């Protein structure tokens, strides 16, 4: 009788590993798209990552940073597949090259296309650095751990990436626009809508 109760308790309890993984998947997938440049390859990569992570879940400490852990596995998987297959994998321009039609309302599609092209021109290490810090929401310490480099290296990659992007896009107004940033951009830029 006691056994039955215990079993049903185990079965009813949602696996928090699975739940936490689910919560991370959208961001993990976006990072995968930024690495591979293609949605189909990104989904394969995320799938491989999920299986790897599941097999390794005993090595993950519950309550620690599952997002950084999953990003590390995905990134390692990506580069090890790249090494196995050779650079031919890099047939695309890299970084969000597909689905150009998807863009948030406040940006014109031309504008975002330019940005994607600029992003694609960055060296791999700088691109991933600027994405992990600027979009995935990691701290420099976390990003450095994910990329297996020093924090200072991560900072300099981000800084070089930003400078390069600004050069390519000839963005001069890097400083804060103030609280009314969006409308300031709208009125001061010549984005096509």
């Amino acid at each position, binding site marked *: 009788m006691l056994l039955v109760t215990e*079993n049903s308790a185990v079965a009813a309890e949602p*696996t928090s590993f699975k739940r936490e993984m*689910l919560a991370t998947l959208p*961001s993990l997938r976006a990072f995968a798209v930024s690495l591979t440049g293609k949605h189909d390859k990104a989904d394969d990569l995320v799938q491989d990552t999920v299986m790897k992570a599941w097999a390794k879940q005993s090595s993950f400490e519950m309550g620690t940073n599952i997002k950084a852990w999953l990003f590390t596995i995905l990134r390692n998987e990506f580069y090890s597949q790249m090494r196995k297959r050779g650079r031919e994998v890099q047939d695309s321009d890299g970084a969000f090259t597909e689905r150009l039609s998807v863009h948030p309302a*406040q940006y014109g599609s031309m504008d*975002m296309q330019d940005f994607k092209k600029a992003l694609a021109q960055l060296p791999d290490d700088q691109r991933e650095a600027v994405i992990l810090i600027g*979009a995935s929401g990691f701290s420099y310490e976390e990003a450095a751990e994910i990329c297996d480099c020093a924090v200072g290296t991560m900072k300099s990659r981000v800084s070089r990436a*930003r400078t390069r992007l600004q050069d390519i896009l000839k*963005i001069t107004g890097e400083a*804060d626009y103030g609280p009314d940033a969006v409308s300031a951009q709208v009125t001061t830029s010549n984005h096509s809508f």
Partner: protein
Amino acid sequence: MMKEKLVTQQRMRTQAGRAEDGLGPNTDIGARLRALYGAVQEEGVPDQLLDLLERLDSAEQAQRTKNAARDGE
């Protein structure tokens, strides 16, 4: 005076967060990066991926139940 300066520095650091690297909330590059990334995030997770996770989880649940039953005997 000293303390005031320190507080200001700290506030700038926490408030602006990433202002120094040009990726903060009100910067053009930061906003565009997040817009691109966000667009992919909003697509949702493909069913095949959700199915995979379900299968992995139910396989594990089944194994756990089996083990519990075995240990209970």
